[in-house]
């Protein structure tokens, strides 16, 4: 079990009048090779939770175990944990700083003490994983790339450390539709090829419905739903109440049901919705 969380709470400004309970008794098991989507309204505790996954925030109440290592234990080697769990923040391209793409992607593994010979292999592998042509890009300055390319270089910098768990906080924010689709497709491929555990935090219900195999919904610092995207999006009313939503095609299914059509209450993709509607018109069904 890569990550196990037991009864985790996190309080900011404890003991003051500004006390905020960001996480409130969360328990989660994250298994190897899962593709998890985390959704929740602003202030629901998503970012606080993911920062516990690699010990950026140490648990003060409850337990976080990464590969069996207890992150509350002061003797736990956090470097080893951070090598296992790669965390990619919002707008990671703001953290690019080296003169060349190669140097930037190599920065992490170099600090881990990876040999020069292996560095080249790691950098090329990581760039290929995010869909960039290593030979064409390694010598360029990261700052002359497009927004989408910069973001992929930043993600490659984390992949070069060969983590087994990859956590991405809003990786598609600010990307155009094509850049967004490409990045999601690459994450999906990366997940199926490498068997890596991927955890994606997103505000886009459409994106999450397309890629995740499990969905965790946070609100008010608690897990309020945890299941397959189909099971979670079936709770449209609850999701809307906490400030989230459902994919547009699920919205369409609900609107059709209201008009008396016998359709499922969830559709995750446009293709699925198409098949459902064609099925309807073939049968000419209306109740």
């Amino acid at each position, binding site marked *: 079990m890569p990550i196990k969380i037991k009864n985790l709470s996190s309080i900011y400004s404890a003991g003051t009048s500004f006390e905020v309970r960001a996480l409130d008794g969360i328990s989660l098991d994250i298994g190897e090779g899962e593709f998890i989507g985390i959704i929740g*309204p602003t202030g629901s505790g998503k970012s606080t939770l993911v920062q516990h996954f690699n010990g950026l925030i140490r648990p003060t109440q409850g337990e976080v175990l990464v590969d069996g290592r207890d992150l509350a234990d002061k003797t736990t080697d956090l470097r080893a944990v951070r090598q296992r769990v790669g965390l990619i923040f919002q707008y990671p391209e703001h953290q690019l700083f080296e003169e060349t793409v190669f140097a930037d992607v190599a920065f992490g593994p170099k600090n881990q003490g990876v040999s020069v010979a292996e560095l080249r292999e790691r950098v090329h592998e990581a760039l290929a994983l995010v869909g960039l042509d290593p030979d064409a890009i390694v010598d360029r300055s990261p700052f002359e790339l497009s927004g989408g390319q910069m973001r992929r270089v930043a993600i490659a910098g984390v992949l070069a450390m060969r983590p087994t768990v990859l956590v991405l906080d809003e990786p598609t924010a600010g990307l*155009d*539709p094509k850049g967004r689709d490409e990045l999601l497709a690459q994450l999906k491929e990366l997940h199926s090829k490498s068997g890596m555990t991927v955890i994606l935090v997103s505000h886009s219900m459409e994106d999450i419905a397309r890629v995740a195999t499990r969905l965790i919904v946070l609100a008010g610092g608690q897990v309020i739903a945890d299941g397959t995207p189909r099971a979670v999006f079936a709770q449209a009313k609850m999701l809307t109440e906490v400030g989230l939503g459902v994919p547009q095609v699920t919205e369409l299914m609900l609107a059709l049901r209201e008009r008396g059509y016998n359709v499922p209450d969830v559709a995750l993709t*446009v293709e699925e919705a198409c098949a459902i509607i064609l099925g309807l018109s073939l049968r000419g069904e209306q109740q």
Partner: protein
Amino acid sequence: MSAIIRMEGVYFSYSSEADSNPQQTQALQGVSLSIEPGEFVAIVGRNGSGKSTLAKQINAILTPTSGEVWVDGISTKDEDSVFAIRQVAGMVFQNPDNQIVATIVEEDVAFGPENLGVQPSEIRQRVDEALQLVRMSEYALHPPHLLSGGQKQRVAIAGVLAMHPKILILDESTAMLDPIGRKEVMETALRLNRERGMTVVLITHHMDEAVLAERVIVLDRGRVVLDGSNREVFKQVGRLRELGLDVPQVTSLAELLCEQGLSLPSDILTVAEMVEQLCQSK
């Protein structure tokens, strides 16, 4: 009626010196367009297409390398008119945390008019009115950092409204918000446009927001490549995909259904329209 925003042959380059690769730094390459008072215009385009550069020309944060921009009849070339232009065209940016300056919501909203030298009694009135317009009156005395993202962006919009602008520019103002926050900001912009006749220029990557604008302008490599009503633009699904964009899920669904032989119009933009069409086709 005369245009409230007019651009003629606008070129803009981020690099002033002779660059080895001018193609890369030419953010705008001959943009001409005009926007009438009271229009709600969405500007879309892939990353690097020049959307934000274009938006920044409207309130003179950037001025053309060549060509000219007039805002409410004033040329942005005229350096003495910068403040007059910014009072006419107010801009809200992407990150709410980067544009809130005060520790109390109503003080933040008052910041703009205070700097314009507006009388205190009138500031009070403008702040109250602006907060009411964005439905944030009950938060007037709250500290902004405890608000949600959507609420912070509405406070930022109120700050702009308190300057009594004629144009509201939203530069990817919903990009960092959760679904309800996005909805709140969009509803606020639509209401200001309908009820107050505010000219709105919306820069966005979310096509489900762009379809709500009556007019959509598509930029690519610094040029206007499509300009028309939301329906005219969004029915060109193939062309939009070529330009690195997409369409809302229901529009995409309509396309798939047509390919499968169902007879549906190609310009379905919302869930409600799709439901109507499907019910009619029975």
